[in-house]
């Protein structure tokens, strides 16, 4: 095994190996470059130092890729499906106000309540007030990224309620006070042994490192909570405007228990989750499991039309739908509008090589992977998240993989342009770019610059190429440049031949 890099702030490599001593072969970048704490780079280094996570994520990525290839072949023409899905989402977002109105009317007609929340505080205030009114002590939740985004659990706990995550992955994270590292598989980074340790701590007695036993523990504990719960909170994968239906997909069935057992069901949804009709939903539901996890279909698809009605035997007495903006409308009417097409399938992370190595936590926000690197700055402010758009080699794998054709890597470049135009980039880089622009339009100066680059910069260990030298050698700079060769021999050789 190779050595594990020491993450910043730790004095010893986590595996206890002794640091390498290689004299002057020590990568210069490591000692001379200060890595900003709290930056993507610092978190990525932390991620790189977790061999378990890296193996798991890489294994999952490769496994999903194989499954996806199979199910896509069965689909016939996946490109046509993607084009149709993109068209549906683009059309919906372009007419979002009309569809929101139609959706709201239909929800209300079926006896549901709709609240538009401008931001996280607004959404949390509405839901905690409701919990107080209903004297909800125990609240069960199924997986929802938007509730992570608005910090709902914290708000409810602060108001005195007990909140229990019932998605297995989220449950593990909740017990361990950890954050999701993948949009679809939130606890992807946890090993079975770690989970056994977390559950044993929670149970107060040892639980074996065995999938069945671990699942049995969670099932038993959660089942009791489902029956005790006064309120159930779910997300919403799709809201169907033509009927006011809330559509939730899950592989564990917990969303059904969460939405039907407690007396009050609260749906928290991002304002962009809509589709016009069931015909459109069909297209998106066909694609979603295939891109998300290479599955042909999802175990449970639940469509909810309002609270319990007269002949129904079960279901909640009250249904509240909280539609959250929280920065989403920043994207409306801009070149980034298509980012709202996202159906949170996680496929851009599934194919992203940076995500593969750095891990989901490196992105720092709730949404990780390429889409996280785009919407986090757009929703929360680019100044605060200005290192995220650079967390990509711009290989374009994400753009090719996105079922709703969001031009992800082009957005990343456009965000970098916004950063440089807003003047919040680094001074050194800006000067280098200006110098380049000048040099590129002055050929004489440019070829001189090439020579300097070749002989000067490559010899030093600091400066703009320190990051190169910290990990790699430079090619040897001996010999003439192509240009020199062309003038001395190349051009004449051609003349001779003719």
């Amino acid at each position, binding site marked *: 095994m190779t050595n594990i890099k020491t993450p910043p702030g730790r004095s010893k490599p986590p595996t206890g190996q002794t640091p390498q001593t290689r004299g002057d072969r020590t990568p210069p970048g490591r000692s001379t470059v200060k890595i900003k704490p709290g930056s993507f780079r610092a978190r990525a280094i932390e991620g790189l130092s977790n061999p378990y996570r890296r193996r798991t994520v890489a294994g999952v990525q490769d496994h999903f890729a194989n499954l996806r290839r199979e199910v896509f072949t069965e689909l016939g023409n996946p490109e046509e499906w993607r084009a149709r899905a993109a068209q549906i989402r683009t059309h919906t977002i372009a007419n979002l106000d009309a569809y929101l109105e139609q959706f709201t009317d239909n929800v209300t007609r079926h006896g549901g309540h709709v609240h538009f929340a401008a931001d996280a505080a607004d959404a949390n205030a509405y839901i905690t007030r409701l919990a107080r009114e209903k004297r909800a002590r125990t609240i069960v939740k199924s997986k929802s990224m938007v509730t992570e985004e608005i910090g709902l659990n914290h708000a409810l706990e602060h108001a005195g309620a007990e909140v229990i995550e019932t998605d297995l992955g989220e449950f593990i994270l909740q017990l361990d006070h950890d954050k999701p590292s993948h949009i679809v598989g939130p606890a992807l980074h946890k090993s079975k042994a770690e989970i056994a340790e977390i559950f044993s701590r929670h149970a107060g007695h040892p639980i074996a490192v065995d999938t069945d036993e671990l699942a049995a523990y969670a099932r038993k504990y959660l089942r009791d909570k489902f029956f005790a719960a006064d309120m159930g909170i779910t997300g919403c994968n799709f809201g169907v405007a033509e009927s006011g239906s809330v559509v939730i997909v899950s592989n564990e069935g917990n969303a059904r228990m969460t939405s039907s057992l407690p007396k009050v069901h609260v749906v928290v949804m991002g304002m962009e989750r809509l589709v016009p009709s069931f015909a459109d939903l069909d297209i998106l539901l066909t694609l979603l499991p295939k891109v998300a996890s290479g599955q042909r279909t999802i175990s449970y698809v639940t469509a909810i039309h309002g609270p319990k009605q007269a002949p129904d035997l079960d279901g909640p007495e009250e249904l509240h739908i909280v539609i959250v903006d929280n920065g989403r409308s920043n994207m409306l009417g801009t070149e980034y509008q298509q980012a709202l097409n996202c159906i949170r399938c996680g496929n851009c992370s599934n194919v992203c090589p940076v995500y593969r190595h750095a891990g989901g936590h490196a992105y720092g926000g709730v949404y990780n992977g390429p889409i996280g690197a785009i919407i986090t700055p757009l929703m929360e402010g680019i100044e605060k998240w200005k290192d995220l758009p*650079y967390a990509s080699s711009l290989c374009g794998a994400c753009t090719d993989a996105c079922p709703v054709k969001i031009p992800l890597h082009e957005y990343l470049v456009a965000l970098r342009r916004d950063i440089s135009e807003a003047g919040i980039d680094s001074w050194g880089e800006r000067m280098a770019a200006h110098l380049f622009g000048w040099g590129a339009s002055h050929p004489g100066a440019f070829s001189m610059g090439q020579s300097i680059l070749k002989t000067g910069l490559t010899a030093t260990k600091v400066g703009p190429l320190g*990051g190169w030298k910290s990990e790699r050698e430079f090619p040897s700079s001996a010999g003439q440049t*192509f240009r020199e060769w062309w003038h001395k021999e190349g051009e004449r050789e051609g003349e001779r031949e003719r």
Partner: protein
Amino acid sequence: MGNLQTDESRASSRATGRATSATSKPLRAALFVTCLADSFYPDVGKSVVGVLRALGVEVTFPEGQTCCGQVTFNSGYWADTKAAAKRFIEVFEHEEYVVMPSGSCASMVREQYPQLLDGEPGWADRALSTAARVYEFSEFLVKVVGLEKIHATYHGTATYHTSCHMTRQLQVVDEPLAVLSRVNGLQLVPLRNNQDCCGFGGTFSVKLPEVSAAMADEKLQHMAETKADFVIASDLGCMMHLTGRAARQTHAGATPSSSVTPSSSLTPSASSAPLPMKHVAQVLAEGGLV
């Protein structure tokens, strides 16, 4: 090798729309050598010149050429990039064919210039017209020169490194394989996860060196697993990054310096000597096509 046949036929069927290979007057191509070939890989530039001349193409090297500007474009400095783009257009807009040994630079000119100069009076049209003249090296051989003219012999087993911009932006996928299928004695073996980025990514390699190196390490490991004698590529950025990383690993002993644990590969790192890398043009040139 079975694949290559299909690749070839697909490539040639696609080629028909764009140019004719049988023309009476000799072909003339302007070489855009690229910064990396000029400074660090002059042999690649020389090979391109040699191969094209051997195929009867008259090669010119327009003096005023500088850089395509992709690094500044991708770093978000679009205004500075415009200077490079305009320079490129001025130098090359009247050439019939512009050939470059880089899928990445070709994609910059062909895919990004029209976007960059969109709406700029006097430049938008010129950007489009220049973009239409640009060919990546193997693409030029397939679409313009004609695959049937290529005969070379190079004995050895190699694996091909698929570069991202060339594949996903320029959408030149089959051409280099079609060209290589014309080399007698050359056995191409598949590379696991060949679509995965090697981690170069321009300034990405210096801004996030640790992640970039981890990506290189995985790529190098997959390359070592092929047991090929060498690696063939179409982009010098990838080559510089991968050979630079391999050299660092070798210098540092069997342990990669940034300690990047071989990730997916789930198998211990191959500690054999790093594979040499060659550009497609070098394979043809060394294979006697000069």
